[in-house]
C-alpha cells in the first residue's frame, strides 16, 4: 500500500509505561489505551488519600512511568512540572464538559458554608422554582419549549463546541477527529460532565494518536464498560427533538432499585431534599440564577 493511503498500515505501536491520572474518565481512557497500545503498560493512577503521601507519589512518576496522561484540571506540583521540563513526557487532555444535551443541569452552592449541595445534579428550573416559592405543579408547567428557548437552552451547542475545541487545540489533541466521531453517536454525554463510554474511547483514541499510534486506531472497534451510566441525566424531549436524539422526562435514581422518576416525582423529590437542606434564595448560587430571574416570572404569569 502506498503512503498515499495514510499511515493506517504502519506498525508503529507505542510502548513504555503510561500512567493515566484523570478524573472520572480515568478508567475509560486507561482501558482504551490498553486496547490500542498493546506494547504499552497502562496504569490508572489513583492519588493517595493521605496528603502527606502526595509528594512521594508524584516523585514516583519519574521511576514508574514513561508518560503521564493527565486531565488538564489536575494541578501538577512544581516537581512534576520540573520533571516535564527535564524531558518527562506529559500529555494533558481536557475534561469533557458539554452542556448542550443537558442545559438544565446545574450545580448549586450555598454561600453560608461555601459548599455545593448534594445531590450535586439539580434542575436549574426546579431549584429556581423552589427558592421562589413556586408550587410543584407550576414548576412542572415550566418544563416546556418556550421556557427552554427563553433560558437559552437551545443555544448551547456552538459555544460548548468552541470551548472544547479551544482546549483540544491548546493541548495539541485532534479535536476534529474526536468531535466528528462522538457527534455520530447522538447524545454522547450522560450529563454535562460525564461522557458516555463511546466518548471516552474517542478521547482515548486521540490521546493514543498523540502518543504516536497510527491513524487507524481511530477506527478500532473498542468496547469498554460504561462506568458512568449511573450518572445519567435525561435529555428532555424538547431538547432531544431539537438535536434529533432520543429523549425522556425520566430520571434514574443512582444506586437505588427505585424505578426512574417522572417529572412530577422528580420535582417532588427535589423539593423535599431542598426543604431538608433549608435552601433559601439569598443563600444559594448557581449559574442559571440571573437569567432565570429575568425570564421565568413572566413565563409563569403567561
Amino acid at each position, binding site marked *: *500500500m502506498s503512503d*498515499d*493511503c*495514510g*499511515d*493506517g*498500515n504502519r506498525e508503529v*505501536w507505542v510502548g513504555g509505561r503510561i500512567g493515566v491520572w484523570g478524573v472520572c474518565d*480515568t*478508567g475509560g481512557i*486507561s*482501558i482504551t489505551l*490498553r*486496547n*490500542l*497500545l*498493546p506494547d504499552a503498560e*497502562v*496504569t*490508572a493512577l489513583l492519588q493517595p488519600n493521605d496528603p502527606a503521601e502526595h509528594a512521594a507519589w508524584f516523585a514516583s512518576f519519574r521511576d514508574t512511568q514513561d508518560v503521564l496522561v493527565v486531565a488538564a484540571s489536575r494541578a501538577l506540583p512544581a516537581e512534576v512540572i520540573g520533571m516535564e521540563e527535564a524531558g518527562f513526557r506529559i500529555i494533558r487532555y481536557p475534561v469533557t464538559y458539554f452542556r*448542550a444535551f443537558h442545559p438544565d443541569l446545574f450545580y448549586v452552592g450555598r454561600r453560608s458554608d461555601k459548599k455545593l449541595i448534594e445531590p450535586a445534579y439539580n434542575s436549574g428550573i426546579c431549584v429556581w422554582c423552589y427558592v421562589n416559592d413556586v408550587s410543584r405543579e407550576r414548576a412542572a408547567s415550566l418544563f*416546556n*419549549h418556550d421556557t*427552554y*428557548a427563553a433560558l437559552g437552552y*437551545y*443555544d448551547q*451547542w*456552538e459555544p460548548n*463546541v468552541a470551548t472544547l475545541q479551544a482546549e483540544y487545540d491548546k493541548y495539541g489533541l485532534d479535536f476534529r477527529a474526536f468531535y*466528528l466521531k462522538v*457527534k*455520530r453517536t*447522538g*447524545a454522547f454525554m450522560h450529563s454535562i460532565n460525564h461522557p458516555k463510554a463511546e466518548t471516552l474511547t474517542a478521547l482515548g483514541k486521540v490521546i493514543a494518536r498523540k502518543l504516536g499510534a*497510527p*491513524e*487507524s*486506531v*481511530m*477506527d*478500532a*472497534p*473498542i468496547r*469498554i*464498560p460504561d462506568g458512568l451510566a449511573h450518572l445519567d441525566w435525561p435529555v428532555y*424531549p*424538547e431538547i*432531544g*427533538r*431539537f*438535536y*434529533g*436524539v*432520543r429523549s425522556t422526562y425520566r430520571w434514574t435514581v443512582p444506586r437505588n432499585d427505585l424505578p426512574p422518576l417522572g417529572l412530577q416525582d422528580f420535582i417532588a423529590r427535589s423539593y423535599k431534599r431542598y426543604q431538608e437542606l433549608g435552601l433559601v434564595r439569598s443563600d444559594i448560587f448557581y449559574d442559571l440564577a440571573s437569567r432565570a430571574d429575568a425570564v421565568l416570572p413572566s413565563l409563569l404569569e403567561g
Partner: protein
Amino acid sequence: MAANPYKGLEDYHFWSRAVAWPGPGQLDPMITDHPIAPEHKVVTMGSCFAQHLARNMAGLGLRYHVAEPPPDGMLPAEAVRRNYGVFSARFGNVYTVRQAVQLFDRAFGRFRAEDDVWETAAGFVDAFRPQIEPAPFESEAAVRAAARQHLGLVREMFEEADWLIFTLGLTEGWRSTGDGAVYPLAPGTAAGSFDPGRYEFVNFSAQAVQRDLARFVDGIAEVNPRCRIILTVSPVPLVATYEASHVLTATTYSKSVLRVAAEEVSRMYSHVVYFPSYEIIVSPANGGVYFDDDLRSVNDLGVQHVMRVFRKHFVAPHAALDREDGLASRPMAAPAVASSDQKVVCDEEVIEEAIRASGAARSAVAAAVPDRPEPVRATMAPALTASSDRGDVATAESEPAAAPPRRGLLRRLFG
C-alpha cells in the same frame, strides 16, 4: 497563479462545514427564505410523507386550507375515518407526478377516464382514491356522484391556493392501456381485478416526470397565477418495486428522477421552490436515526427536523434555529385538519398487506399482482450521473485496522 473559485464561498458550499460539522439535528440544506404570509392559503398534496407536512401547517401558524372539509355535524372521529383533512381535498395520496397532472385535468374537465370505478366484493370504489372511504359505495353512480363533488372542490383548491406544497413520491405506477389513466394502486390490491390486457406497469423516466411536472406547474399558473409552489421529494423508500430490480436500486432510481425533476422545474420557474425534505432525512449526517426500525418509516425526530427547517425558511425567515419542535403536539387550529397523532395513510402499504393476506409473503411484490406482465419503461431510460464534488479537498480514507489484542482488560483498574 489562478484564483481558487471556491475561496470565499459560504460555509454551505462545503461538506465539511455544512454537513459534517453541525450538531445533530442542525443540518439545514436550505439557503433561501420564502416567507409565507399568515393569511396565505396553503394547500398540500403528494405521497404519504406529505401528510406530515399537512398536519404541521396549522402548528406553524400558517393557514392550512382544506377545500373539502367534513360536512357540518360530522364527528371528528368519523371525519378522520373518512380521510377529511388528510390533504387539502380528499384525493388521497398522489404518488406520481402523472397522477397530479391527471387530478388537475380531471378537476378542470380536461380528462375523463374510461375506467374510473372498481368493483370489490362489497361494492364499488373510486379507482383514483380507492381507500378514501372506509366502506365501498353501493353503486357506480354513487362513486361518480361523489367524485364529481370532490373534483369541484379540488378545482376550488387549485384556484384559491396561495401556496401549494407538492411532495413527489414515486415514479412507479399502474396505468390503463386504454386512455393512459394512472392509478395510485395496482388493480387487484385494494379493489378491482388485474387484467394485463387493460393495465400495465409503468416506471416514468426522468424526462417524462420533468415534462409532467412542468405541465402541472403551467396548468396551475393558468388558473391561478398567484399560486406559488413548493416541491419536495418524499424520503420514504418504495415499499416494493415491480421492476426487475432490487428495491433499493429501484428506490434510488425513483427518488433520483423525482429530485432531478424538482430541481429542473424549480430552476425553470421563479415561483417554484425546492424544499429539501429528502436530503434532511436521508443525509449521512443523521446516521439513519430518522428512520424507524423498518428503515422505511420516517419517525417523529425526522419529521420535526424537517418542520424546523421549513419553519426557519418559510415561516420565520432570518430567525435562528432557536425554535422547536413539539409542533406535532400542538393543537390544530382547524377541526377539518387531521390530528397529528393520526396514523399516516399509505396506500402503498396495501401492497404489503395484500401479500400477507395472500399467504405468500415472499420477497417480491409480484405476489400481489397476478400474471406479471413485462414492465414498460416510459420513454427514455434515466441517465443519472454523479455530479462533481464541489466541496473542499477530500482526504484519503485510512485503512481500518483490526483491534489490537485485548490484554488483561480491567485488570489494573478493577483488579
